[in-house]
């Protein structure tokens, strides 16, 4: 069994301008997707033997992404940009990570603490969600002493609102508990910065030299129509999706909570669908009313993931698209129905600016109304600490995440801009880098802006279909157990083998890490020998070999950024003009050939 190395030649260096596979560019933290896909494809078929490799791959991912086993359940952004998408289906990277998680989550409890010397300043991190913890993790690794101030009694922030049928709480808890143990992060629970005496000033007086605000969006957005707040949101039977999921995560809603209730959910985002599917599992007869269109290709399409919509549809949840909510009608103080004009357009050139056809009204009645139209940050706190500008917006440099009002304060994650978990993680990473630069007196910007160029799919004769994703049939998933089956070892290996490794070797080096190759050999062309025939161009699957006009004649050249050092062009060259520099394969060949005579 191979053993991976990630130092020396096998280390992936970050570059200012880099060609990367599109999946890695799409991933906000630019995870080394290709490298780990290659390693997965080389696992043994026997589970006991494979474990050793799985842990090694997990350890490698963990260095950059201590949440990777959660990503395996709920992320998969990378799959949106996989080159294979156009060839039958993206590589199922999310499920590959969930596969790793199936083994790695248990191992996390035994993982040895990172060896870190913490000799730098104290940093206060407000909010123990993915953004705050990612910042704390990165600061810890740099030798700072971060303290996380978490307002509740658990870490994970909004991740707790993800229903258990998508993300088991045990996975979330293990990940969080081990993260603070491994990186030795100090956490203060039930510590709500902004309450009472716990202010920025107090933190500064207590010796914190920088503050990262990652408080997320703790409050639900109220329902508005045009510029007006829709009345009736205080009726009995009306609640917010955010509150509903929060109560659910605390186990406060019994399994029959919505039994025989007609539940109307307002919203078209992923959270609205989480709410709808949760309500369905609690016995409700659920209707989702979304402003957006059901046409996936429209600019006004329902923003929730296709899989969420499909899941809801399978679970007998009615989806009513293209409807706004103008009025909530109550009777005897209880919710009765909503009045919904047809929405004819959601976005225009000014952005979100819905237009309605008031002649086309529809009343939708129900027993419970769950409003899930977004979340908002704790504005009172931001105001009080002076982090807003005259117009009431966050005054923050979007590149460095440094507050424009208070230089020791950095702001990121959902509180700045609502996004996916991994986007908050990215901001946590960036904030850690900024805080490091700020506290060391370094330039805040220099050398940080990196540019990526996506790599096209290599040429191939045949493409393979993706592994089938298996969901528990709808009639059997009225519960909070996972409804998606994970990949088996065999499936994971086959799926990882589908990856055509679009990216250049510089950003991968999987083969070096397990000793297949010594280094990435450069191709050298002897221009005197080269006849300019172009056979190398034909042989190369990566558009790396090409022909140039030089001194009035054609000669071949190699774009090293695209080259895989495979040597196929060298073997194909009829005039022996191409060689791989430093490649010692020929030594073994010579040795073997020399031994033949003996």
């Amino acid at each position, binding site marked *: 069994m191979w053993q991976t190395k990630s130092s020396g030649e096998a280390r992936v260096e970050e570059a200012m301008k880099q060609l990367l596979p599109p999946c890695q560019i799409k991933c906000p933290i630019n995870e080394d997707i290709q490298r780990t896909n290659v390693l997965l494809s080389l696992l043994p078929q026997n589970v006991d*033997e494979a474990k050793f490799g799985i842990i090694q791959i997990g350890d490698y991912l963990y260095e950059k992404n201590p949440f990777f086993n959660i990503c395996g359940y709920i992320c998969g952004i990378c799959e949106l940009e996989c080159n294979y998408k156009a060839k039958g289906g993206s590589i199922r990277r999310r499920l590959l990570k969930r596969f790793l998680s199936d083994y790695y989550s248990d191992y996390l409890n035994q993982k040895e603490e990172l060896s870190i010397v913490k000799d730098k300043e104290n940093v206060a991190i407000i909010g123990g969600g993915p953004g705050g913890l990612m910042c704390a993790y990165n600061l810890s690794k740099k030798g700072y002493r971060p303290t996380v101030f978490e307002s509740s009694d658990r870490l994970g922030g909004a991740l707790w609102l993800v229903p258990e049928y998508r993300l088991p709480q045990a996975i979330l808890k293990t990940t969080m508990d081990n993260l603070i143990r491994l990186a030795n992060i100090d956490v203060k629970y039930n510590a709500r910065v902004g309450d009472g005496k716990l202010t920025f000033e107090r933190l500064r007086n207590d010796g914190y030299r920088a503050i990262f605000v990652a408080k997320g969006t703790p409050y639900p957005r109220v329902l508005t129509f045009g510029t007006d707040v829709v009345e009736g949101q205080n009726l009995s039977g009306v609640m917010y999706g955010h509150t509903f999921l929060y109560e659910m995560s605390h186990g406060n809603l019994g399994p029959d909570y919505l039994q025989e209730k007609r539940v109307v959910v307002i919203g078209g985002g992923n959270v609205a669908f989480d709410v709808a599917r949760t309500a369905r599992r609690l016995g409700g007869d659920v209707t989702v009313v979304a402003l957006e269109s059901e046409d996936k290709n429209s600019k006004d399409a329902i923003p929730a993931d296709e899989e969420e919509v499909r899941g809801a549809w399978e679970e007998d949840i009615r989806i009513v698209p293209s409807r706004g909510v103008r009025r909530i009608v109550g009777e005897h103080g209880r919710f009765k129905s909503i009045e919904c004009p047809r929405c004819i357009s959601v976005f225009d050139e000014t952005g979100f600016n819905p237009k309605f056809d008031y002649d086309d009204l529809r009343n939708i009645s129900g027993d419970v109304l769950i409003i899930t139209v977004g979340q908002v940050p704790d504005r009172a706190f931001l105001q009080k600490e002076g982090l807003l500008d005259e117009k009431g917006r966050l005054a923050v440099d979007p590149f460095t995440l440094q507050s424009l009002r208070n230089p020791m304060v950095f702001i990121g994650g959902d509180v700045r801009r609502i996004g996916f978990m991994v986007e908050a993680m990215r901001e946590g990473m960036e904030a850690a880098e900024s805080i490091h630069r700020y506290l060391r007196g370094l330039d805040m910007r220099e050398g940080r802006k990196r540019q990526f160029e996506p790599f096209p799919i290599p040429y191939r004769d*045949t493409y393979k279909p993706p592994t089938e994703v298996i969901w528990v049939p709808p009639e059997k998933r009225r519960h909070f157990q996972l409804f998606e089956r994970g990949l088996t070892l065999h499936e994971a290996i086959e799926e990882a083998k589908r990856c055509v490794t679009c990216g250049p070797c510089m950003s991968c080096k999987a083969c070096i890490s397990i000793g297949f190759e010594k280094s990435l050999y450069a191709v050298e062309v002897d221009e005197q020998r080269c006849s300019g025939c172009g056979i190398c161009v034909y042989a190369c699957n990566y558009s790396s070999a090409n022909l140039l006009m030089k001194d009035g004649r054609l000669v071949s050249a190699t774009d090293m950024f695209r080259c895989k050092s*495979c*040597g*196929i062009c060298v*073997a*194909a060259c009829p005039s022996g003009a191409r060689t791989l520099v430093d490649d010692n394969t020929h030594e073994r*060949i010579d040795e073997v*050939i020399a031994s033949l*005579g003996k």
Partner: protein
Amino acid sequence: MAGFEPKLVCFSCKFGWGYLGDEAKIDSQVKNRVPIICSGKVDATHILDAFKAGADGVLILGCSEDNCHYQDGNLEAQKRVYLLQKVLAAYGIEPERVKVELSTDPEGKKIAEAVKRFSEAIKKLGPLGKAEVEVSRVA
């Protein structure tokens, strides 16, 4: 041809063959093996050099059809060997003395078997004649 033990050279793709096995053990079972990053990297000159040096056969073990790490190096190898076989035949060397086998064997348990099978086939052809070697030197 009693007692004739063919001299063989075996190239094996690192992504398809033996990467999980114990290399020393595989080497002890299979003499004259060259693990190579891709079967498509095997040059025609490597094969001819082997014949010149006294090999009776050359076996190339590549990845199974759709699994080449470099997209189609295994097919490149097949194509190259096919063409080389025509040349060899023209010089009176049996084309069967070069063979490409495409399969996957991570543990490397089948390598010895594949070489043995190939060896049996070469045994039937007998040693590569002296005259032929002269010809291949010219080639």
